[in-house]
Structure formats: C-alpha cells, structure tokens
C-alpha cells in the first residue's frame, strides 16, 4: 500500500470549505483585543476592591450596593463578565483541542465549557441589572444606609 508522508512541521490544511468565515482567526484576534481591555478592567476592579481603604476586609453587601447602584460600575462589571468569560472559555477550548485526543472527550469537554460560559453570562448579567440594594425582609444592619434610609 502506497503511503505519502507530509513534509515535517508543515502547516495542517483546513477542510475543503472555502469562502467561509475564518473563526479561528477572529478567535485569535478576540483574545488579544479582549486581553487589553481586561487588563484595564480587572486591574481597576482589583484596585478598587482590594487596595482602596481596608481592601478585602471591607467587602460586604453594603459595599456591593454602593457599586452596583452606579451605572458606571454596572457597565464596568458586565463588560468584565462578558469579556472575561468568553476569553477564558476560548482559552479552555484551546487547551481541550491541544490535550484531549478522543473525539467524544473533546465534545463533552467543549460542551461543558460552552454551557458554563453561557449560563454564567446570563446569570451574571441578570444579577447586575436586577440588583436590589434594599431587599424586603433583609436585616437593616446588612444594608447600605445611603440607599435604604427610608426603610
């Protein structure tokens, strides 16, 4: 049986489909563009939450109320949520493509990554935009008096 060997280290050829969208190229570009934005967003997030004032010791429901009542931080957090989850999900997809060899394993792992990313994007976005700083029945001491003084 005649076999032909490819030249070593030659770039693998993609399947016959022509004129389609080159998703790998756009994914590659997305990692770089979102990466730059995430450096700014996450460094800002870490600075405000861990460096300003008493840092991690000051975090509680009242602190989050103060941030999520402000449209600036709503947009900041939702942008971080979407950009980071898609960036991380695409990175994990790259690892699965590199290390998982069986088609079934690859399918299961990539489906799990996709499901986690979609569920958490929906959950996180809903939480930010439906947040109530003064939920009924809450302990007054836990709330931010700046928003809940009428209670």
């Amino acid at each position, binding site marked *: 049986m005649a076999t032909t060997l490819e030249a*070593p*280290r*030659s770039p693998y050829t993609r399947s016959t489909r022509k004129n389609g969208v080159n998703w790998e190229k756009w994914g*590659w570009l997305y990692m770089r563009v979102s990466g730059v934005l995430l*450096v700014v967003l996450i460094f800002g997030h870490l600075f405000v939450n*861990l460096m300003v004032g008493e840092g991690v010791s000051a975090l509680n*429901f009242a602190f989050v109320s103060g941030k999520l009542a402000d449209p600036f931080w709503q947009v900041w957090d939702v942008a971080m*949520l979407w950009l980071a*989850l898609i960036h991380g999900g695409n990175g994990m997809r790259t690892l699965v493509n590199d290390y998982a060899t069986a088609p079934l394993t690859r399918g299961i792992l990539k489906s799990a990554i996709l499901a986690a990313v979609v569920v958490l994007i929906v959950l996180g976005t809903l939480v930010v935009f439906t947040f*109530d700083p003064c939920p009924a029945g809450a302990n007054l001491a836990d709330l931010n008096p700046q928003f809940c003084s009428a209670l």
Partner: protein
Amino acid sequence: MPQSPAGTLTSQQKTSSRRPAGTLYRGREGMWSWVLHRITGVAIFFFLLVHILDTALVRVSPEAYNAVIAQYQTPLMGLGEVALVGAIVFHAFNGLRIILIDFWNAKYQKVMFYVVLGLWVVTMLAFVPRHLINVFSH
C-alpha cells in the same frame, strides 16, 4: 498564523541555534512563559466561575452574600488571594508581551519576558504587604 508552505520559510531557516527553527515556544523563556500562561489561565478561569456564583448571592439575600464573602476574609483565603492576584498579574503582563510579539517584534521576546517578571515583582510588592495587613489586622 503562517500561511506559506514549509519549504518557503526562509527567514526561519536562518537561525543559528540548535533549537528547531520556526517557533519561539520551544525551550527556555519562550516555553516557560507559555507554560505559566496556560497554568495561570486555567486557574483564573476556575476562580472566575466560582467568583460569579458567589457574587450572584447578592441577588439571594444580604445574609447569604455576607456569609460567603466572610470566607474570603480569612487568613487562609487571604493567602489564596495573593496567589490569585499573582496569577492574574503574570497572565496580564505576559498577555501584553504576546501581543507585542505578534503585532510588533518577536526578536525581543526574551528581554520582554524578563520585563514581565520585573513588572510582576514591582506590582506584587505594591499589593502583597498592603493586602496582608488588611487580612491579618481584622
């Protein structure tokens, strides 16, 4: 993203080192930065999943959120946050290094790796003492 067939990679055949031509990701600084980028990336991804779930507790009740966030304020988790921030800072600076390699010039990749390590040390010196004081003085 090399598009040319293997036989025409003339610029990469000029290398005089014993390492295989055509990639900066095999051996030494290029490889170890890549390994660290993967490990920190996976760690950050799994923290991100947990962090979105714990933050979502603000929608359950203030008590539930405060109970979980109090766990982040313990000494053990305080040390974990040092590791987390260390991973994020490395991934961030090395990510910018990758962008510079891809869009600017790959020949400075080694020196840029040491710049990444230097910036990492400076950033951690600014963060760690302040963070540990916040964790251990409460």
